[in-house]
């Protein structure tokens, strides 16, 4: 195996490990929805949080002309922010309207089209980040 091929293989393995870790973390978040309905709420807050993270990531990547570090961590952290009131709910604190400060935690459920709208937004934000990556130099010499 050539050195570039081995390096590419290591990079792919690293990406897979990150993907597996992110998937495991999101499954954990899904399971944590004891006090709420995961089928609906998880999707809303995941799409909202991830969309915002991806838009920020696209802006950062376009400005620095480099992929952002730890790209799977950004959406996960934004998801945690968006769903923070659900942690409070599990602890016995009901939602209130001011909790919209957590990325629209209350009102994001009531947008027309519901989760389909947020799914579309998520795909658009993901496309924005991927386009920002695609515009970068394809290979760099060290």
């Amino acid at each position, binding site marked *: 195996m050539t050195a570039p091929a081995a390096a590419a293989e290591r990079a792919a393995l690293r990406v897979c490990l990150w993907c597996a870790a992110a998937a495991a973390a999101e499954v954990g978040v899904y399971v944590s929805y004891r006090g709420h309905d995961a089928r609906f709420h998880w999707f809303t807050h995941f799409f909202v949080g991830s969309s915002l993270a991806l838009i920020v990531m696209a802006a950062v990547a376009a400005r620095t002309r480099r992929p952002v570090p730890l790209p799977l961590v950004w959406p996960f952290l934004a998801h945690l922010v968006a769903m923070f009131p659900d942690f409070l709910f599990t602890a016995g604190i*009901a939602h209130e309207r001011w909790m919209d400060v957590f990325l629209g935690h*209350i009102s994001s459920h009531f947008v027309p089209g519901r989760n389909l709208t947020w799914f579309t937004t998520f795909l658009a934000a993901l496309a924005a980040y*991927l*386009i920002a990556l*695609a515009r970068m130099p*394809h*290979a760099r010499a*060290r």
Partner: protein
Amino acid sequence: MGQAVRERPTFRPTRALVVVWVAAAAGFGLLLAVARTSQGPLDDPDPAWQRPGFLDAGDLPVPAPPGLAVRGRTTVVFFVRSDGGSELCQALEAGRLAEKAAAAVVVADRTPGACAAAAVVADADGAVADSYGMRRPRGGGPPVGYAVVDAAGAIRYRTLDPGVAGRLGEVRTIAAALP
């Protein structure tokens, strides 16, 4: 001098990125479809209105109809079908909801049965559920869920919840949000 320039693994934008986007679209689209199809006949047709978790959603608060709510105290009015009444009653007797609120159970049947932890009334024609503005489940028929009435007699919360007997802690959280 003479050192070969090593290239990092080449990032192939168009193809790889399109694959990532399509995989995300297909994967999350599939998960959304699975979540949608896993909803049961007792669930709300619009999941945004099921267990929203906050008071005064939509057109609330509105005055509660007279008869079931206890004046001067928060009251939770449960709506069940005949086959779920005993399970809810056992949960009410075992739970701690009484610390926060009085309870009443409306059974969509002619024979309501008895419950030591709550007043029980029959609602065979659905008139009581309608007077509380309970939403209709996806599969039709009488609602399974609850409404929370504050001490002043206003409905502050209402939701369908087919699994309410196992989630009285959540009902308690909502009741505790009222003064």
